[in-house]
């Protein structure tokens, strides 16, 4: 778990960030598996690391972003307050988490078979599945509309 943490921390640095992010997703998928969610772990690898990250890489390479990734090094005046803010947020969150007595209770052994997950997904949550499929359709239409060629004279 700590190794996965380290992987996730180191991944944000260059434009190789997407590759590091794929590594982080693999580690996260392993944690999902350890928490008793094998189907979610498999979908994490397939959907996130497989599809979404390839989409990111495709866009980055299509637009040729790789060479001009590091414009000017962000000075400490820029990232200093942000790091201070996020670390203080982190400390407060950790204090809140570990103040709660529930935090020290252990997660019991749990393994959810994919069959039970599928039954819950298409039984009780069938309406939500339908809504999400509608949303995917709308997203496809929206991406198509955004991807049309620009009208004349709109370039600047």
């Amino acid at each position, binding site marked *: 778990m700590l190794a996965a943490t380290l992987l*996730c921390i180191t991944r944000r640095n260059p434009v190789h960030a997407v590759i590091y992010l794929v590594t982080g997703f693999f580690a996260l998928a392993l944690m999902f598996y350890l928490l008793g*969610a094998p189907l979610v772990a498999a979908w994490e690898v397939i959907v996130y690391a497989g599809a979404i990250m390839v989409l990111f890489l495709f866009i980055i390479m299509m637009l040729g972003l790789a060479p001009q990734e590091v414009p000017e090094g962000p000075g400490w005046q820029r990232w200093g307050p942000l790091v201070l803010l996020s670390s203080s947020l982190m400390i407060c969150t950790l204090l809140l*988490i570990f103040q709660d007595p529930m935090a020290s*209770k252990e997660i019991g052994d749990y393994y*959810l078979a994919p069959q*039970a997950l599928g039954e819950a*997904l298409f039984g009780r949550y069938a309406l939500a599945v339908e809504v999400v499929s509608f949303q*995917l359709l709308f997203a496809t239409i*929206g991406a198509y509309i*955004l991807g049309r060629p620009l009208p004349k004279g709109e370039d600047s």
Partner: protein
Amino acid sequence: MIPFGHALAFAAALFVLGLTCVLLRRQIIMILIGVEIMLNAASLVFVAASAYWQQVDGQVFVILLMAITAAEVAVALAMVVYLWRRKRTLVADVFNGMRG
């Protein structure tokens, strides 16, 4: 097995990293990647809670969250391509004008 607080703390660390990525980076692609990291932290909390209370619902919601994320990424990347064609850059500070 691990305590519940450790999973929550890990997810909080992941979320804070994603938030830092969103706030720190200027490129729109990196902002989107930060959003992805934060969504993953949320799904980690869902899976951990699902294992904690021995319920199916958290994992079902993670599946739905993945589908929603896929839709969001499709629209966002189409918008990235659109903005690239408009201004030839992806630095978020450049896009500062609106037009009715």
